[in-house]
């Protein structure tokens, strides 16, 4: 920690259904149909990778470690991060759903071994929409947190994070090491170039299991069912502004 080009950043990335896919609920209500569905890196995690890579390009960061906790195919998600500029990867292989607290416990163990100065991760995954992992990790490590980051300024021993909050922006100063979770407007992630995708294939990728970190990955919340949200009935087209106001008046909306 301290001088330029000495920081280590850990970036946990999650493999999720691509944000462009319209998900379908299985007819038996047991979950979402994931067969033949395109999977990608969680968009908020992409922003986290991008931020780490930019700091490396600025000479502030020395090493970026991308981590994913998920099925064997999550290796592809790590390769994407490596192609964007991360240096090496750790895949913690699991089957089935992994709850945020389990992820946080595994990441805590990795942080204790890797001793990063910062962890960057998405504010939430677009599949379970939990918005918990970064905060839980920070708490388990006894670190500060800057959630929903809109911009970030790094000094030797602290990070200033402007956060997107309900009323506007709030800036906090965090003692390092710390966890930062990324919001939409922090940056625009790059596309990996073909040469970098080729290079990424040669970067080291370690494989682990939750047991290696002494963590039980069994979910504790019981999902009873997954159902379709209630549908809105078909609406009507109006021809003019005054007809629109008549209808709104009738509906008691104005």
């Amino acid at each position, binding site marked *: 920690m301290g001088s330029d080009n000495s920081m280590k950043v850990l970036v946990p990335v999650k493999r999720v259904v691509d944000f462009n896919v319209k*998900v379908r*609920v299985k007819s038996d209500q047991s979950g979402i149909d994931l067969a033949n569905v395109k999977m990608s890196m969680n968009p908020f995690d992409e922003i986290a990778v991008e931020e780490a890579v930019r700091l490396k390009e600025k000479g502030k960061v020395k090493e970026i470690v991308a981590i994913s906790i998920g099925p064997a195919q999550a290796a592809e998600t790590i390769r994407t991060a490596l192609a964007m500029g991360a240096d090496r990867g750790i895949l913690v292989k699991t089957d089935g759903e992994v709850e*945020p*607290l389990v992820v946080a416990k595994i990441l805590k163990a990795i942080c204790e071994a890797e001793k990063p100065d910062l962890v960057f991760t998405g504010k*939430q995954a*677009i*599949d379970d*929409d939990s*918005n*918990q*992992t970064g*905060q*839980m990790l920070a*708490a388990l490590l*006894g670190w*500060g*947190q*800057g*959630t*929903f980051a809109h911009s970030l300024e790094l000094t030797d021993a602290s990070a*200033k994070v402007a*956060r*997107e*909050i*309900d*009323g*506007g*922006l*709030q*800036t*906090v*100063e*965090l*003692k390092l090491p*710390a966890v930062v979770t990324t*919001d*939409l*407007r922090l940056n625009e992630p790059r596309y990996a170039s073909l040469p970098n995708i080729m290079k990424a294939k040669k970067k080291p990728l370690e494989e682990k299991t939750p047991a290696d970190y002494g963590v039980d990955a069994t*979910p504790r*919340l*019981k*999902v*009873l*069912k*997954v*159902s*379709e*949200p209630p549908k*809105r009935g078909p*609406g*009507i*087209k109006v021809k003019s*502004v*005054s007809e*629109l*106001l008549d*209808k*709104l008046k009738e*509906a008691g*909306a104005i």
Partner: protein
Amino acid sequence: MAALVIAEHNNQTLNEQTAKTVTAAALVSTPVHVLVAGENCKAVAEAAAKIAGVEKVLLADNALYARMLAENMETLILSVAEKYDAILAPASTSGKNYLPRVAAKLDVPQISEILKVVSADTFERPIYAGNAIQTVQSPAGKKIITVRTTGFKAAAEGGSAVIENLAATADAGLSKFDSEALSKSERPELTSAKIVISGGRGLGSAENFKLIDKIADRLHAAVGASRAAVDAGYVPNDYQVGQTGKIVAPNLYLAVGISGAIQHLAGMKDSKVIAAINKDEESPIFQVADFGLAADLFQALPELDQELAKRGY
């Protein structure tokens, strides 16, 4: 045992989301207590004491909690956690910030953004930006829950809870408040407004958002925006309605120049009445709108302004 609700406030006024969270809490465990953490926030505690169904208000009035920084909120909530079998907070940017820390330290899986309490241990919550609803059952033990408050009615006034001072915990020393840039507006707040008028990329510029403002003034509405309009720099980020912005469910949601991307619909589709004005008749927004007007907004908005004036709004 009892449920603890963490109050949402700005040290001066109690946010309505608190009374809605009290409604959800009472379905999980009773009696309900409210924790008000802040600085010089006695008036907030007094307002919380008037919420019907609240038995006790814990007031932690200390500079440490002035900005509700997550690290200090964690230790404060943990200092009373053993007395409660459920701890709930609104799923605001504040509640989402501190509550997962509490869950992690208690080794309990948090249940985020509940829409409905099915039974004391079973909840409905949205996944995939509201494109599916998950029904989850909590294991035995404490429940740590954030509440999507648009799904709950505010508990009425009429309570007279006792207010008890709660000792501050030691400063975690992990983070410091630096500054805040809050949008100032005379208009009602997005998440509690009865009418919301949102503009999208169709507006074309920050200047053109004034067309929306005029209508909003006539209807005493809050002004929102799509992510596209925010990203284009027309309005600040806290205007954003959608999956990653604010979730709103007003009596009337009027979408102007908004195409209706999934992520935007996720933030407003529970509104009672949805109306849309958009040039493109094929826009997905018309599939959720109760009343759709396919028209050029630059003609429709001034017309709407005049028509409202004529009708005395």
